[in-house]
Structure formats: structure tokens, C-alpha cells
């Protein structure tokens, strides 16, 4: 023991000298999870279980952070990103999040996936004052209720905002439509239904019938038969991908040919391909998008898309054409942007403040013209989307961006 005393004295002396008594040099503020050369971020996502298809998002985010680290990191700090698999099960999200916060001492949780999963840790993270940034779910509450959960924020367009964009499109292009709605009978489906109803406003009577289904159902044939019999000529499907595919097939089997609006959750090309194979006609299918589609040839020479291809090549398991991967890269871009802006004031409070109130970025992976923006009175980063229609092999952009900023109170 005695031998160590001199070295400790030496260290103490060095520290005193190095800090110079705290005068003169500009102070840099840091927080838990920040060291001189690293920033530690945590994430929970489904990489196994029923929603494992989303798991690649985490890997794509990691690929972007590695890309940034390769360029020297954020203000000299490398991002250390730890992904844990919660299998889409909130009962696992809670202990894994606690592990990341208390054991791994992460600076912030980033892009945790799943409405139920992220709701299950929202109170905990807010009580610990740990940022829960850019959750990967469109549930409106994560943005709308930011004032009561000040450490939590979503990123993607909220489901209600998306449904309002459909409403705007219907009012503009199908003013005489008779609307039938198929929705899942939980928060997810109801969020969409509310957005559609609010968006139609005084024209809400255009909805001639709405039918719900339960996730335990074997199919939605009974509901679709009723909707068809209601003489609706426009069908909204607010469902999860499996039910959407089956519903698209059933519509075709019923020899029904309404204009179909699909929610963005179910519109990835892989699901459209499955529906086609299972017998769906897929005529007059409309949805919305806000991210550049890697399979769309119009972006082949786009600099953002080329940058994406370079980044995603750093992830051996990520398929470049998978829309989930460009989502991951795009949201990671916003995270890095926030960290860069925080500069020397690297505290949890400042970073959350920038994300929720001071964002103003153009994201190279999103459609041209989209502003990722927040202010002290508006905590919805993305509120613009563009209508897309299915052309048989892919989605085609229609018209221009529809902006619903400020409509959700």
C-alpha cells in the first residue's frame, strides 16, 4: 500500500495543475454517460419475437453512428451505442431499460421501439430524468404529451398527423367519397381513426361505416363484407401488416374495388409483395411517405441516397433496399445533429431541450422539402408527408408535400 501513496499524490498534483484552479479556461458541462471521448446511448428494440422485422432499424442506426465515429465522432466524442433485444415485450423492455440506465449508465435512450414497450418505461425514464429521445413509434402521445413527460419525444409523423394527411387528400381529390374504415380496436387503430375524423372535420359524415377487429381475430372478412354492403367506395385500412395483407386479399375476393388507403406501418414493399402473391389486386392503393424509398429509381443519383448506400454497406446484415434501414439512418442523423448542436453543453437537459424545442434541420434521407422542426410550442419534429400510389411494383410519389404542422392540439 505504502508504495502507491506517491503516485496518488502525483495524480492529485497533476489534476490541480491541469485544471488550473478552474479559472481562465472555458468550462465544458457534461453528464452521466459522457466522457472526454465518448457518448453512450442505449436502445431497446425487437430483434426476436413477433416484430423482429423491425430489429434491423437498430443495426442501421449503429451503422450510422459508426460512420460518424469514423469521421471523428461528434465534437471529438465517439458514440457508443448499445442495443438490447426486448422481443417487442414490454415486460422485457422495463428491466433492459433499467439495465442500460443504471448499470451501463447511458447518457440517453435513443429510438426505443414499440408503443407499448416505450410507454412501459416512460414514467421510469422521466422520473430518472433520462432522455427518451425519438422513440420509434407513431403514437401521437409521445409528442403531444411532451409537456407532461419532458424527457420523452417521438420523431416520425404521428399516426394522427398521418391520418389527417389522408383526410386532406380525400377532401382535395375525392370530395364525394363514401368512406369505410377498418381499424384495430386498440390505441393504435383509434389514434388513426381520431386523426381521420378530426381531419375531415365538418365532413366527418363522409365516413359511412367503420368496423373494428381484435388482434385475436382469424380474419377480417366479416368486417369487410359489412363495409362493402355499406356502399363505401373508399376503404381505409388502419391495421398491422398481417391483417392488412389478409384484408387486401379479402377485398379482391369479394370483387370489391374501392379506393384503398393503407397506413404507413403496413406499406413497405415486402408486405405489398406478399399481398400480391396471396391474390390481392392492389388497384387504386394509396398511402403516404416521408422517407426516400431505396427501391425508387428516381433517387438513384441523389446524394442523400448515395450517402445512405455508403453508410448501410457498413452493416453486413442490413439489406439496403429495406425501408426500415433508411428509417434508422435518418433518425440517427437527427440524433447526431442534436448532439452536435449541444456542443460543449453536453447535459441531458440541454440535449433534450434542443431535440424538443430547437430542431430545425433538413435531413438528406427524407423527401426533399421536409423540415425536421420543433419549437417551444410544437414538439412534432416531422409533420409533412407526401401521398404515394402503388404502381404494381413500387410506390409513386403524387402531388406535393402535405403539411399538417400545428393541427394536433
Amino acid at each position: 500500500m505504502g508504495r502507491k501513496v506517491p503516485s496518488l499524490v502525483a495524480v492529485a498534483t497533476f489534476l490541480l495543475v491541469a485544471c488550473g484552479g478552474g479559472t481562465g479556461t472555458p468550462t465544458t458541462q457534461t453528464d452521466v454517460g459522457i466522457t472526454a471521448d465518448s457518448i453512450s446511448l442505449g436502445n431497446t428494440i425487437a430483434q426476436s419475437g413477433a416484430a423482429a422485422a423491425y430489429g434491423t432499424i437498430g443495426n442501421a442506426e449503429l451503422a450510422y453512428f459508426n460512420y460518424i465515429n469514423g469521421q471523428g465522432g461528434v465534437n471529438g466524442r465517439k458514440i457508443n451505442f448499445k442495443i438490447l433485444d426486448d422481443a417487442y415485450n414490454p415486460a422485457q423492455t422495463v428491466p433492459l431499460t433499467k439495465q442500460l440506465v443504471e448499470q451501463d449508465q447511458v447518457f440517453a435512450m435513443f429510438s426505443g421501439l414499440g408503443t407499448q414497450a416505450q410507454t412501459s418505461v416512460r414514467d421510469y425514464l422521466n422520473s430518472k430524468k433520462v432522455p427518451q429521445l425519438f422513440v420509434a413509434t407513431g403514437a401521437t402521445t409521445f409528442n403531444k404529451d411532451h409537456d407532461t413527460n419532458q424527457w420523452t419525444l417521438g420523431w416520425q409523423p404521428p399516426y394522427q398527423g398521418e391520418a389527417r394527411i389522408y383526410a386532406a387528400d380525400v377532401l382535395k381529390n375525392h370530395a364525394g367519397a363514401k368512406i369505410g374504415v377498418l381499424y384495430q380496436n386498440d390505441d393504435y387503430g383509434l389514434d388513426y381513426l381520431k386523426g381521420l375524423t378530426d381531419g375531415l372535420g365538418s365532413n366527418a359524415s363522409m365516413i359511412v361505416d367503420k368496423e373494428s377487429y381484435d388482434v385475436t381475430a382469424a380474419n377480417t372478412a366479416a368486417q369487410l363484407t359489412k363495409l362493402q354492403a355499406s356502399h363505401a367506395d373508399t376503404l381505409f385500412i388502419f391495421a398491422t401488416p398481417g391483417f392488412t395483407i389478409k384484408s387486401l386479399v379479402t377485398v379482391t375476393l369479394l370483387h370489391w374495388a374501392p379506393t384503398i388507403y393503407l397506413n404507413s406501418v403496413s406499406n413497405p414493399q415486402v408486405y405489398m409483395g406478399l399481398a400480391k402473391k396471396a391474390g390481392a389486386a392492389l388497384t387504386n392503393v394509396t398511402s403516404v411517405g416521408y422517407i426516400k424509398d431505396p427501391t425508387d429509381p428516381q433517387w438513384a443519383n441523389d446524394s442523400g441516397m448515395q450517402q445512405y448506400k455508403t453508410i448501410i454497406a457498413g452493416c453486413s446484415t442490413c439489406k439496403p433496399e429495406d425501408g426500415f434501414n433508411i428509417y434508422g439512418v435518418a433518425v440517427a442523423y437527427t440524433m447526431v445533429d442534436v448532439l452536435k448542436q449541444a456542443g460543449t453543453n453536453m447535459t441531458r437537459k440541454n440535449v433534450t431541450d434542443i431535440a424538443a424545442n430547437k430542431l430545425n434541420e433538413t435531413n438528406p434521407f427524407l423527401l426533399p422539402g421536409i423540415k425536421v422542426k420543433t419549437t417551444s410550442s410544437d414538439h412534432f419534429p416531422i409533420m409533412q408527408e407526401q401521398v404515394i400510389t402503388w404502381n404494381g411494383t413500387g410506390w409513386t410519389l403524387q402531388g406535393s408535400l402535405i403539411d399538417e404542422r400545428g393541427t394536433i392540439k
Partner: protein
Amino acid sequence: MQEFLQQLVGGLAIGGIFASLALALVLIYNAMGLVNFAQGEMAMLATFVAYALVSQGMSYWIAFPVTLVLAFAGGIGVQRLVIKPVERAPILTLVIITLGLATLVNGLAGFIWGYVPRSFPSPFSSESVDLVGVFVSYRDLGVIAVSGIVLLAVYLLLQRTTVGLTLRAAAHHPEASRLLGVHVSWMLALGWGLASAVGAVSGIMVAPILLLEPNMMQSIIIYAFAAAVLGGIESPPGAVVGGLIVGVTINLAGAYLPFVGGDLQLAVGLAIIIGVLILKPNGLFGRAAVRRV
């Protein structure tokens, strides 16, 4: 009227799916006097095996029988490895084991193939036939037709062959059968094999409609139980008729009973199970068990 007929036909279509799985449940009940909660999951696994064979380039019409043989062998294997060691245990032990088996098989399929839904080939056209304004898909008709064929085959096997007679004897009077020289344990294994193969037929037929994924059968197994109980848990024709009745009931209840709607269809299925067990425990086609006391 048109809508009512369409709901009726839609109910028969989904009922055919319930019936096809209920047939396997009934077979296993006949073989060993208990319901196999893993029946749906075993059928799903067999369908994934068929999927793997087809994606390796094997023709559908070869993959189909090969899968049935593998499912048959798999059913026997499960009985030998998992059930036989606890053959004499209380019925509850066996029930818990089949529940555990269901979880295990589901997890295994997810581990190997993942949870993204896949399309599965079907010998039937993906289009629907127009019956004066009411539409029914060829695939749904195919499920019902194949269930009918399986039913006939099962009936002939159980009622018209020595093996069938031995099977039934071993299940219902194991002691007496043993005295007569029947290998009771192997007969039970044979029952497991048959049920597994019938389940595989069900899985292969419904996968193009429900999309193949590890949870494919979970949405229909409860209804299949309801169908089997309604028809009389020992009766193969009862399973088919029960399946169709359950399908039509949940569809019509969902469409025309406002308090049921799309939300409580599963509750209707459960209500059928409870109602039948209270009012007519032997189901529509079952025989009352007579026991001398």
C-alpha cells in the same frame, strides 16, 4: 340479403379452416383421451417444413406427401420421447406437457424462420367464384373439400380397418387391449402420428390464406377447440360440422349483434365451449359415456 348470404359464406369459409384443425384435435382425443394443446403449433411446424422443402426447389406435389410422412414420424417421435415417459401420470401433467410443447415448438419455428409472414403456395387459384353475387374463394372451397376427404379417410381407417379397431380399443380400453396382446403404447404413438399428419394437411391448406408465420395457428386453435367440443370431442364428422357452425356463428354474431361486433368474436368462440360443456357435454355427435358403477 346479399350481405347476409356473403356473411354466411364467409363464415363457412373460415369454419372450414377451424374444421380442418379440429379434425386433428379429435383424432388425438380418440387416441389418448386428451386434447393436445400443441396440435396447432405442430401443424404450423410441419407447414414450415413443407415451406423449406418447396423453397429448396422441390415440387409442391412431392413436398406435400413428404411433409405428411415427416409429420407422421414427428408425431410418433414426440409421443415416444415426451409423452411416453409420463404416460401414467395424472391427466393434468399431460395437459401441461402439451402446453409446454406448444410454447417450445412456437419458439423453435420463430428461431429458425423468424416472424415475418411468408406466402405459401396453394394448388387452388387465388381467385373467387361468383355464386349469384356471393363470392367464395377457390382456396376456401379447397380447404373444405380437403377436410371432407381427410374426414372420409379417417372414418374409413378408424371404422373399417383392423388398425383402426385396435387404435380405438387401445385408447378406450387399454387394460383389456393389453390382455388381448395389443401394443397399447405403440397404438397411442400411431394415434399421435396420424393426428400430426392430419394437422399438417390443415396447416398446408390454410397457410396460403392465413400467411405462414409461427403464430399462424394461434388465432384459430381456440375456435378449433370450440368446433371439436361442439361436434362432440370424439366425433370426426362432429369436428367438421362443428367447425362450420362455429365459423358461421362468429361471422353472423360479429356482423349483426352490435355488442359483439368485430371485438368479441373470440368471446363467442369461448362462449360456445362453455355453453356446450354445460348444456350438452357430449356435443352434437358425441355419445354419452356410460359407466357401470
